């Protein structure tokens, strides 16, 4: 008796064998799907900020503004990974900080700062990996998520980002806050993921 695998591969083989000449693999020129308005090699950081902002991500370039914004939002408990000592110190004087992300505090911790692995200028996307994130939930569950993005890690295009994807079990491209338009086509921000997505570019 054939296994499911054997049955399927045989069916596929039988389906394809009458094809005299299989469709050739088309050549995909590098950059063929790049947006036409991309400036040549220019300022990726400026483009990133523009695109990220357009998609709903708040971009900060200094701690002071970030802190002011969080203050204005009356956040309750901020998680920062312990290894970011200067950040922990800076925020501890201003608000409640924890360096321990615990699953049962998922609803208490309403703000998280976690590192981004990279950025994509063409789409204003923040790239998060398992390697760069202590806990997947820390980048996903809080209402406010702030990604720490090193400006040197910003790729110019979506194609570039795909070409340099690391070996990581879980790479997530984040382009703005979570949203849905399921109810009458009306756009609502903040469904299961963060309702407010921000980025601190360092």
């Amino acid at each position, binding site marked *: 008796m054939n296994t499911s695998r054997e*049955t399927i591969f045989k069916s*596929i083989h039988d389906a394809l064998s009458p094809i005299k000449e299989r*469709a050739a693999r088309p050549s995909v020129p590098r950059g063929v799907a790049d947006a036409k308005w991309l400036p040549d090699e220019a300022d990726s950081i400026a483009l990133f900020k523009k695109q990220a902002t357009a998609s709903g991500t708040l971009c900060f370039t200094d701690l002071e503004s970030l802190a002011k914004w969080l203050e204005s939002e009356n956040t309750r408990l901020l998680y920062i990974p312990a290894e970011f000592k200067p950040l922990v110190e800076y925020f501890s004087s201003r608000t409640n900080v924890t360096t321990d992300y615990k699953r049962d505090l*998922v609803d208490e911790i309403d703000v998280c700062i976690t590192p981004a692995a990279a950025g994509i200028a063409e*789409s204003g996307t923040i790239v998060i990996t398992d390697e760069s994130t202590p806990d997947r939930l820390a980048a996903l569950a809080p209402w406010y998520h702030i990604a720490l993005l090193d400006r040197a890690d910003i790729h110019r295009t979506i194609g570039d980002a795909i070409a340099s994807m690391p070996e990581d079990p879980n790479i997530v491209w984040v382009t703005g806050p979570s949203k849905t338009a399921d109810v009458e086509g009306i756009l609502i921000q903040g469904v299961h993921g963060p309702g407010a997505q921000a980025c601190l570019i360092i």
Partner: protein
Amino acid sequence: MPEQKVDSYARRLDRPVQQAVHDNSAAGTEKRYGSLGKDFADADSLRRLAGAIRQHSIENLDIYLEQAEASLTRNGAHVHYAVTADDACRAVSDILKKAGAKKIVKSKSMISEEIYLNDHLATQGIESVETDLGEYIIQIDGDHPSHIVKPIIHKNRRDIARSFEREGLGDYNDDPQTITSRARSFMRGKYLGADAGITGANFVVADTGRLVLVTNEGNSRFCLAAPKIHIALVGIEKVIPSDSELTVLLNLLGRSATGQQLTVYTEFINGPARKDRPSGPEEMHVIFVDNQRSEILASNCREILRCIRCGACLNVCPIYRQASGHAYRSVYPGPIGAVLSPLLAGKNFKELADLPKASSLCGACNEVCPVDIPIPDLLLRLRNKAHEEHLPSPGTPPMAGFGILASSPSIWKIAMKTGGLSSLVPLEKLPLPYLSPWLKTRTLPGWRGGQFRSWMKSRNQK
């Protein structure tokens, strides 16, 4: 005269629902057009490239599927195969039972709808909660999605508020913001209490073994963060060769579906999470499902397997806009459904053989398809198939007589001349069953058969 089912459904559809479906679809078409026009100098050549990529992928499915399996296994995932819908359901419940999993959370997966997974899991005593907002509402209503990307395009906020109240999510409140935040809090409990997360996959990249998932809500991220087991259900046709092809397809998918350059979350899953991690599945399973796909691959409609499930064809289809998704009586509505659903029905083709006829063959679907599927040609092939299988077709005039008439010029010319007799008898009185549907809403021009021919003849004689 018996009605075609899709026409009858459209006729009986509530006007407000039809209007909502029309407006929402038209908006989707506008957004797609705007985004492609803004971003690409020649979106059509990109679509044709993507079409060639997908055609190559499916015509070399034996190679790429095997390669995907090897890559996934290397990455630490368990690969399973399921021939039929039942096999797929059982493969899922076997994995869950082995792990003692009782509660699962699901992110949107069309193939899971095809196989009626939730119904099966219920019979196994396993709770399965849909986490995508639209799909959750469908689930609690015991309804079916009416669009592949926007499942509740046919519901309004009052419908949803009533359902939420009935489900115990709070008193009646039809504010979309409130509805959404209630879903958010409710679903958190489900994610965190779930033993397993089930997803689909938009693409499987053969050389790296990466699954690609494209969403906006964050529900699939949660399904892959909280529970310890991940099961991905993937149609065998989803494999693509490598990252360079992925780049083209990803750049077209969001724009075609919703006018977005990228959806909010694009996830690349390359295996289970590392052992020392607090979140992420320890165990990953990928179930490749056939469910008639290899039959379709063997047929003369194999191009339909290129489909990347964007929904652009639904949005632009004038018949879909008039009839709405449920008129298609199957998981996939609209132009994609009119081809795919009768084919997925396999031996039950005749149950859905009317769907390919529910089209004016306008070709708008092919024009918007990111992988350039020649849908009208496939609809015509399926009409031919239905004819050869002698399947009845209400309202369709038999053509054997026409074949004789139009290949016999002398009879034709006589018919042209004598057709004028119809001006002596009111058309409605003539026993022409196929004429009365026309005459109910339209007049016919006067008969002029033979006039041009005699004009041409007398001209040539001069």
